[in-house]
């Protein structure tokens, strides 16, 4: 007969997959670790410390926000704040002072994430917003702190001091090693500057000067498309932001995420594909003679493509929307790289596309099963 036993009541389904938001976030943390190893190898222990400070500051900011808003503080350790902190640090030059990531992550978490309602509700990628904030507030620190790879080993300076090198040192025609010193995209930008100086010289009638400038620019570009440059970019022996240097180790993280079912391939592939095609068509001095390999390997597009273009919260959910997002971000990145004021456009392109994500979702809803199509 009917027993007095009490059963829990719940809506179906009564079983569920064992994937959770927390597991996804910690998978991203794990996937970021190989690139952290590269950062430590090339830029020294201070790189490790910057990433740690940034992640810790992110968790602390999240904790204080949650406490202030009387929400469960356990969310602070759900992994998402750590991801934000790590990604922000990965987007900083290795020579920044230690207080800079603290300000950046605090802004990212408080203004970029919690002000919008916390996890899942932020409109733009908080790490990139934090970076944009730092770029606007501390432009010199954010663009001068470049360090030559592995320089820390031979350096006699105090390792814990800000130790950027000035870009002016690289104004001579660089060889592959020197290229690795500044960021490769800075050098590319210089070659385009030389191009426009050459155009000016032609207008002024100084053909000899123009030829010399053009020759210099071409020389720089051929050095950038050199095999040893490619190899350095792949393994990460180059100047650049902390986390963006080693393409191979970033890919290792990406493959891990894909195998864990966390990385949706449409986003990174459409993004990197657009970067490559655009680079080939418009990246050179004429048409169809750009160097797609260099553009994909250099700068932050691999880091951006795997970890920021594919950020779940701020990118579209629809399959078609994801492809549109990737293409849009790729185009903006390349327009900034080729004609914009910055050498790299990865982070701004993603921020701009984040803003139109809800719109993209709205207009790219998949066709329902059985919609329009009739009788097979």
């Amino acid at each position, binding site marked *: 007969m009917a027993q007095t036993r009490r059963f829990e009541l719940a809506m179906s389904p009564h079983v569920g997959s064992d994937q959770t938001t927390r597991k996804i976030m910690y998978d991203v943390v794990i996937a970021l670790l190989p690139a952290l190893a590269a950062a430590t190898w090339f830029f020294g222990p201070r790189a490790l410390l910057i990433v740690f400070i940034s992640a810790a500051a992110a968790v602390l900011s999240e904790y204080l926000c949650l406490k202030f808003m009387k929400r469960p503080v356990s969310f602070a350790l759900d992994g998402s704040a750590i991801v934000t902190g790590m990604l922000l640090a990965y987007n900083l030059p290795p020579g920044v002072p230690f207080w800079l990531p603290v300000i950046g992550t605090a802004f990212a978490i408080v203004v970029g994430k919690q002000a919008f309602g916390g996890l899942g509700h932020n409109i733009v990628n908080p790490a990139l917003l934090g970076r944009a904030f730092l770029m606007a507030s501390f432009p010199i620190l954010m663009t001068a702190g470049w360090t030559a790879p592995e320089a820390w080993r031979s350096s006699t300076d105090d390792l814990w001091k800000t130790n950027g090198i000035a870009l002016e040192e690289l104004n001579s025609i660089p060889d592959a090693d020197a290229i690795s010193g500044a960021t490769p995209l800075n050098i590319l930008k210089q070659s385009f500057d030389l191009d426009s100086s050459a155009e000016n010289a032609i207008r002024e009638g100084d053909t000899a000067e123009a030829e010399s400038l053009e020759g210099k620019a071409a020389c720089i570009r051929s050095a950038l498309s050199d095999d040893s440059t490619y190899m350095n970019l792949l393994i990460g022996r180059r100047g650049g932001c902390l986390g963006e240097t080693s393409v191979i180790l970033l890919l290792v993280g990406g493959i891990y995420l894909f195998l864990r079912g966390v990385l949706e391939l449409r986003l990174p592939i459409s993004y990197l594909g657009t970067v490559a095609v655009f680079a080939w068509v418009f990246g050179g001095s004429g048409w169809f003679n750009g160097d797609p390999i260099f553009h994909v390997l250099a700068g932050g597009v691999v880091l951006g493509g795997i970890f920021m273009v594919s950020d779940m919260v*701020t990118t579209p959910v629809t399959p078609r929307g994801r492809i549109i997002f990737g293409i849009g971000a790729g185009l903006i990145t390349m327009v900034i790289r080729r004609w914009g004021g910055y050498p790299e456009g990865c982070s701004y392109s993603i921020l701009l596309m984040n803003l139109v994500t809800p719109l993209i979702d709205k207009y790219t809803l998949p066709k*329902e099963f059985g919609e329009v199509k009739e009788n*097979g």
Partner: protein
Amino acid sequence: MTKARTFRGGTHPPGNKNLSSGQSIKRLPAPAIVRVPLCQHLGAPSKPSVSKGDKVIRGQEIGTQNGFISLPTHSPVNGTVKSIENFPMPHRRTGPAVFIETESEDGGQVFEKWDDYRKHSPAEIIERIKMAGVCGMGGASFPTYVKLSPPPDKNIDTLIINGVECEPYLTADHRLMLENPDDIILGMEILAYTLGVEKCLIGIEINKPDAIKIMEEKGCSVLPLKVSYPQGAEKQLIDAATGREVPVGGLPLDVGVVVQNVGTAAAVAKAIRDGEPSLRRIVTVTGRGVESPANYDVCVGTLFSNLIEESGGYAEDVKRLISGGPMMGISLYTDGVPVTKGTSGVLALTGAEVRDVTEGPCISCGKCMDACPLKLAPSMIATAAENEKWDLAREYGALNCMACGTCSYVCPAGRYLVHYIKRAQEAIRANRGKEA
């Protein structure tokens, strides 16, 4: 064997079918009192046609059909009507049930036996299937005769018998295919004859190779299907079998297909060959919350508590009791509810088996969209529903959701997506009622 087919989307919950798939069907005698629900099918409950103190015989009609989408109800035993009262039900809160004190369980043949169904017209057969109270035994319990009466402008060319049983844990259809393939095949032939179709398939997931083998040996045209939830949903089964998409808001009839569950086919065979109405069904009692999982052949009106007792009672850590499978089944607060024609399983799950996550915010991972077999936008419907934006929910396809639960299953944030979508459906329908 031809290559296994499937549909796009879906997910792969652990089957857990080996708990009960090796247990042969055990026929249980009727309990001392059967509580026969008058609302075992989809649609209007039948009207009681007996009253307290009446003697009834097995197979006698005790409730008459009450409308087009409705069916008569029959007594599964010989006995005396004790009362007719509202009683807790597995598929709704309460409903009218006829309580009958069991005396014996012999007889049951109330219609003429038709040895050769071909001597009778399709119309006669459909009438018999209706009077025998046969409804879909897969879970939705739609009156079978309605499905067999397509409007004259619909040209039906394919009959699919559904032996997919994609719900985890359940093994009732599997055991039926193994132990009583002849009834299924006869039922299938009768249904094909009634519909006038040549093409007749039986869809089975490839996790039941023994069932596929038996049905093939019996000369059936088997459609092997990949294991994917919800492969057994009508629209997904038709898609896999024929490549035809049932239009939004449409019926299988619109693409020339009728789908019937294996249990329904067996019930049809009984109604025609033996002249016996639909009185019993196969129920899987399983889950780690019950001592010995099993498959039973039971009278409708048997209480769930009887079945649990038969299976050795509950395990210590039982947490949830479910009518049906774990994906679409309804959780119950009591085991004092009767088996209906639509009860495919009684599931007692332990705390370790049920999903235990705190609901978090949507992180827009898009997994629900990839998995939704109807290609809806579950997370977006749910968010609209949470904000009570019913028009938006409708725009995203809320009304077409079949509540299969795939989206909630894959959601890493543990959102109760099905709950929000059902809430939207109710609100949209209620608002529509106001407008009209």
